[in-house]
């Protein structure tokens, strides 16, 4: 479980996050949604320590305040965190197998045979068997995301962060990635937090959804309530397209 308490982030005189609080439970896919520039990525980066918040706390398992920990202690907690980056962030100089194996080599005493077994297990889990020798430049966008997921789960993390996992993907591949993340979350009881502005993801896997608007937490709920909310800012975001407005009118009408 991860809890954010009163998190704020100020760049110069610009307030990017204002007093955001939220609670992310295990075995649930929690989504942070909002328009571009609403503070989603900054919130995620503050939660994993890639940015230092101006004020507030980030509690892992309700006790450890990640924000106040020194870098050496943060690194220990990060070994329990998996992260899928927007551009996948695979290491260009390593092939698929080496990319997924990297955390195992760095932080475990497993033999090569054990590591290979675990790598193949994870690649199979993301439907990428027999791609071990391919280089990142030889992969499609969707394959890169799946290798990113395999690398993120190879250490059996307790926390999984995904930054825009569907960006740049076609709708079918995006849905498959969403389903994969959800399956993994339930299977390993991971606390999963996803940054997205893809409404298909919200409606498909949003067990818990928070909506950021101009750096504030404007609304929270789930995939069942997001379409029926009377919050004006949320409605403007969700029903920005005519297609979604028609769906709402059908639901309400």
């Amino acid at each position, binding site marked *: 479980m991860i809890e954010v308490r009163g998190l704020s982030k100020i760049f110069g005189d610009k307030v990017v996050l204002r007093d955001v609080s939220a609670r992310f439970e295990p075995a649930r896919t929690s989504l942070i949604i909002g328009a571009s520039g609403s503070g989603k990525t900054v919130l995620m980066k503050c939660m*994993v320590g*890639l940015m230092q918040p101006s004020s507030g706390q980030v509690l892992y398992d309700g006790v450890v305040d990640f924000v106040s920990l020194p870098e050496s202690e943060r*690194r*220990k*907690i*990060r*070994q329990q*965190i998996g*992260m899928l*980056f*927007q*551009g996948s*962030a*695979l*290491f*260009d*100089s390593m092939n698929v197998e080496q990319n997924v194996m*990297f*955390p*195992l*080599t*760095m*932080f*475990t*005493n*497993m033999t090569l045979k054990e590591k290979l077994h675990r790598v193949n297990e994870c690649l199979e889990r993301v439907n990428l068997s027999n791609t071990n020798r391919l280089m990142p430049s030889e992969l499609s966008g969707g394959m890169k995301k799946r290798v990113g997921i395999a690398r993120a789960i190879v250490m059996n993390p307790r926390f999984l*962060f995904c930054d825009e996992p569907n960006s740049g993907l076609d709708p079918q591949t995006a849905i498959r990635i969403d389903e994969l993340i959800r399956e993994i979350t339930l299977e390993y009881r991971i606390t999963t937090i996803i940054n997205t502005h893809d409404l298909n993801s919200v409606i498909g896997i949003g067990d818990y959804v928070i909506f950021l608007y101009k750096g504030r937490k404007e609304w929270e709920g789930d995939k069942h309530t997001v379409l029926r909310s009377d919050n004006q800012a949320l409605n403007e975001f969700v029903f920005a397209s005519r297609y979604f407005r028609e769906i709402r009118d059908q639901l309400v009408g």
Partner: protein
Amino acid sequence: MHLGKRSIYWNETLRQCVDIGVGSLVIVIIFSLFLGAVLTVQTAYQFTTPLLSRSIIGSIVTNTAIIEMAPTVTCLILAGKIGSSIASELGTMRITEQIDALEMMGVNSAAFLVLPKIIAGTFMVPLLVMISGFLQIWMGLVVGVITDVLSAEEFMQGSIQYFIPFTVTFALIKATTFGFIIASVASYLGYYTSGGALEVGRSATQAVVASCMLILLWDYLLAQMLL
């Protein structure tokens, strides 16, 4: 430290040694052969008087190659080749979030990415400088004989007669210092790149310019301190 972790650091250092050393070998060979040839031709052009022995040409080519051309000029060339390569590699890793990915795994990204490059730069550049020095002198001799400026015996006689062993030590001190400067300046500028492709290019350019300036500055300082 885990055994595997140690092997990853070791492999990364070896990869950098290959990138820097083997990757720069062709340009160093081509540059050194031409420079050696030019050194002999231009030195011969300036010493046309019959009052001086022609073996003095061998002495000047050898000493110039060892003291200045091999360490300093080669390193200026390498600053362009290695410096831009390191800065753009790290800059690209930064903007594509590969460095963030390392941090997220709990890896000290600076130690993992920068240290092997500095070690490789500090060890491989002196090797390249030694190769360059040897090739410059050899090519100087060959061109001297081919163009009938002086015989091989005269060249060797001049080289040996006025040879000061400390110049080799001095050249290696310079090469080690310059290798460290090239790798560390480029790593720093690449690691702290922010923005996009334009900034990566800017970092690479800054790395080359800053390395060249520092090489010239330290060239003077070392000469002042050690000679």
